[in-house]
């Protein structure tokens, strides 16, 4: 379904993605992990065409992605930060996003699930962060698309909403969809992920089942496994770069400030 | 005996009019040409010319008669002669269309010329493409009224004046329409005359032009789209009342141009949308009162040598510049005018602003120095400059100031 070939991207002098090769062809949930600045979001946004890669190719359904973006009708995307035009009402926003897509939307069921009925006529600027995130989720999940990309979906959610979200994610997996998720909540990964892609400094350091990762570094939990990975250098990048040593040193430099606080 | 003589005189006097005749000219009339009828006519006779085209210009009238057109007969001067020449007192010419005198560089050919006589009446004529329209020389006590004098200006050198007076006095010029000449009406050494309710427009130079003419009055006229509306030069005691000076646009275009005149009165006129409303130079003791200056480029521009003039109770509204002055203005009086741009206050509510108004802005000065800067007019920068100059005047003259500016415009 989605293939990335030698994808590279720099922002100024900062190399964010360095020759990424990845494929998402099998249904299931892939957790894209890595510390802040490791290139997770950039990777996902490249797939959506929001970031334009410097080099490499992205194939969707076997074809290079179209800059006009019509392929995006097959992708649902949950952005990391949920901020909307402050003066639009919730219902208006949902209607607007619906008007951009040809597919059938199941917004009514989602509004019920997340309990948004009472705020439908409120202006978005008046909503709390958690409620906005729920609106964000409705906008993302209301389409039946083969690919779902969720960037930090749990941020600010109350427990009930979190349960609903998990249900939805599991349903989607059962429906044979491809899900890409970034999150800092390792328990969520352990609970749901079929596959883990670990990114660091713009390279893939691990790509496999969560169990394999724990096994490889001999840690009982994913959380520990990641921490271990960041501090030790058990692994080297999967692709062999010409300057692997330099990268490792730089990597070690970052370990001092591990961004993972699960 | 004396009684009898007086009686006889009375009879002669009363029977005089009865003795005059009416002569008809035209196809199928008693006279086939105007000249024949003129030869036959006696003092006080009336010649009626019927419709048709007459090619016998110039028609020279050497006796006191009335020459009337009936059905607008055409006198065609065929491009090389004058139309009508009046050489006797008490002549009336009315109801003709006089055409096509042609242009000349040697003689001032006229549609109708009055030579050295008095008590003439010229009315209800149409003068089409005459070099000069109506030319009065050494004439007095006459009337020129209801004529339309329509020329086609080619250039100042080969255009004449619509109504031209040279050494005349006591002439009434009223209700005429003059268009397309060099000067619409031209006065040189013409005195004690009245110009009323005429329209003078589209003339190359001036709508009305006075040279060395004293004690004249013009009132209720409209001067529109001329090179300059009216020019008064080297004249004294001219009264200018109730006239409209409108749309006299262009380089050096004025509503009213005053040059070396004295003791004039300019009252209740409207100056609207002229490049310069009034331009005055070397003119003294002029009284400007109750005039409206609306939307002119410069409402009043005073060049050097103007003393003891009075500007009082005028409205200055919507002009790009209200006042420009060169030279010493201290002997002139400017007061009680309404200035649209006045921003002062009136705490004692007497209708007069409590701070004097200085109508000359810094930007006036800048534009005088570098004319191209006019393209910056009304920019924020210019407003700032004007404001700072207003706060602490350096370059603008302190003696141009209205100490009693009115808060509200005068209703007229």
């Amino acid at each position, binding site marked *: 379904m989605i293939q990335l070939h030698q994808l590279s991207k720099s*922002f100024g002098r900062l190399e964010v993605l360095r020759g990424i090769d990845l494929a998402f062809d099998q249904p299931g949930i892939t957790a894209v992990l890595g510390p802040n600045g490791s290139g997770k979001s950039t990777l996902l*946004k490249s797939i959506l*065409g*929001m*970031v*334009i890669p410097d080099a490499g190719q992205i194939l969707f359904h076997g074809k290079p992605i179209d*800059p*006009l*973006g*019509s392929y*995006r009708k097959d*992708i649902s*995307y949950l*952005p990391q930060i949920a*901020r*909307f*035009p*402050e*003066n*639009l009402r919730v219902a*208006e926003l949902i209607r*607007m*996003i619906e*008007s*951009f*897509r040809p597919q059938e939307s199941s917004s009514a069921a989602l509004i019920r699930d997340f309990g948004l009925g009472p705020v439908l006529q409120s202006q978005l600027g008046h909503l709390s962060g958690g409620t906005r995130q729920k609106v*964000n989720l409705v*906008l993302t999940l209301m389409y039946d698309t083969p690919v779902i990309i969720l960037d930090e979906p749990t941020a600010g959610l109350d427990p009930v909403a979190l349960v609903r979200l998990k249900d939805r994610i599991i349903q989607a997996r059962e429906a044979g969809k491809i899900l890409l998720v970034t999150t800092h909540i390792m328990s969520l990964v352990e609970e749901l992920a079929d596959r883990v892609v670990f990114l660091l400094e713009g390279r893939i350091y691990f790509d496999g089942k969560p169990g394999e990762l724990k096994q490889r570094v001999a840690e009982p939990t994913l959380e520990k496994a990641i921490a271990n990975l960041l501090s030790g250098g058990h692994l080297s990048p999967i692709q062999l770069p010409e300057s692997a040593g330099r990268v490792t040193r730089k990597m070690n430099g970052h370990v001092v400030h591990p961004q993972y606080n699960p | 005996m004396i009684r009898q003589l007086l009686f006889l005189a009375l009879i002669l006097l009363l029977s005089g009019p009865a003795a005059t005749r009416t002569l008809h000219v035209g196809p199928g009339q008693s006279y086939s040409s105007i000249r024949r009828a003129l030869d036959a006519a006696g003092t006080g006779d009336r010649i009626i010319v019927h419709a048709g085209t007459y090619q016998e210009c110039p028609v020279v009238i050497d006796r006191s008669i009335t020459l009337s057109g009936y059905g607008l007969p055409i006198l065609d001067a065929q491009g090389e002669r004058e139309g009508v020449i009046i050489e006797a007192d008490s002549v009336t010419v009315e109801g003709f269309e006089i055409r096509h005198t042609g242009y000349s560089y040697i003689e001032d050919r006229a549609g109708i010329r009055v030579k050295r006589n008095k008590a003439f009446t010229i009315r209800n004529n149409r003068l089409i493409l005459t070099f000069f329209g109506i030319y009065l020389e050494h004439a007095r006590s006459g009337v020129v009224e209801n004529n339309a004098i329509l020329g086609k200006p080619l250039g100042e050198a080969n255009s004449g004046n619509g109504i031209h007076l040279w050494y005349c006095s006591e002439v009434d010029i009223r209700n005429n329409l003059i268009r397309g000449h060099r000067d619409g009406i031209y006065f040189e050494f013409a005195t004690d005359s009245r110009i009323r309710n005429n329209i003078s427009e589209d003339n190359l130079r001036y709508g009305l032009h006075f040279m060395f003419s004293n004690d004249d009055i013009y009132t209720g006229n409209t001067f529109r789209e001329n090179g300059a509306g009216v020019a008064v030069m080297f004249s004294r005691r001219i009264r200018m009342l109730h006239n409209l000076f409108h749309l006299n*646009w262009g*380089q*050096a275009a004025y509503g009213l141009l005053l040059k070396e005149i004295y003791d004039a009165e300019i009252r209740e006129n409207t100056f609207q*949308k002229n*490049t*310069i409303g009034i331009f005055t130079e070397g003119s003294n003791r002029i009284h400007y009162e109750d005039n409206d200056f609306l*939307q*002119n*480029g*410069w409402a009043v521009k005073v060049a050097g040598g103007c003393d003891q003039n009075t500007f009082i109770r005028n409205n200055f*509204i*919507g*002009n*790009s510049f209200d006042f420009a002055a060169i030279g010493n203005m201290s002997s002139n009086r400017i007061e009680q005018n309404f200035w*649209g*741009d006045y921003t002062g206050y009136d705490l004692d509510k007497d209708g007069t602003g409590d701070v004097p108004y200085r109508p000359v802005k810094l930007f006036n000065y*800048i534009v005088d*120095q*570098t*004319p*191209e*800067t*006019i*393209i*910056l*007019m*009304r*920019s*924020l*920068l210019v*407003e700032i400059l004007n404001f700072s100059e207003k706060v602490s005047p350096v370059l603008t003259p302190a003696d141009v100031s209205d100490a009693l500016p009115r808060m509200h*415009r005068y209703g007229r």
Partner: protein
Amino acid sequence: MLRIIRYSFADLIRSRWLYFYTGFYLVLTGALFLISADLSKVMVSLMNAILFIVPLVALLFGVMVQYYTREFTELLLAQPLPRRSIFLGQYLGIATALAMSFLLGAGIPFILSGIFLSGEIWNFSILLLSGVLLSYIFSALGYLLALMHDNRIRGFGLAIVIWLILAVIYDGLFLLGLAWFSDYPLERVAIGVTLFNPIDLARILILLKLDISALMGYTGAVFNRFLGTSTGMGLALVVLATWAIVPVTLIRTISLKKDF
């Protein structure tokens, strides 16, 4: 794209900033009428306000809206929509909302004053047209600035600098230049320099209505041809339109390359 214009417009016309802006013009124009019954004076004061405030507000608004809708823009980018419709749509939404706000605020008092019965209607229309054009031009510039600079302080700072330059400094240098080289024929230069500043252009457009009597007094043939005929007005309008089109084209080009 029409849908995006519509929603962006719908969002903005409910913004209190915009209410404030409309209210400002209502109060300003209304007060001008109350203070002075003289229509041409109202016109001149309003003209100063338009040339001064419309560009500043439009610039800041363009910058602000671009920044504060970044995340929402990302949401739109994830939809099956071409980029150019997203960005042009958003821009047109902002510009139209601003222009409407201005039109209502400045227009209502004029309508109430019965201007449509007077001969000033054309002057007034030109005034409104200039305000509308300036709204479109400067909101495009602001939007463009925000697109080019992710650093918000830099974006707002540049907006204010650009405004200062175009509103005052440019004319100051222009005036100095004219005074300095006043021995040379400068007509063409003067007209040329004017064309490069949209505020000056809008001003000239209004001048041609309000001050044509004075402008006709200038003794240069080129000026007269430019200012005295419909050529000037036509040229000014065309260049103003260009001033709107260029930043819009840049918005399009930059938005196609930009990462979010």
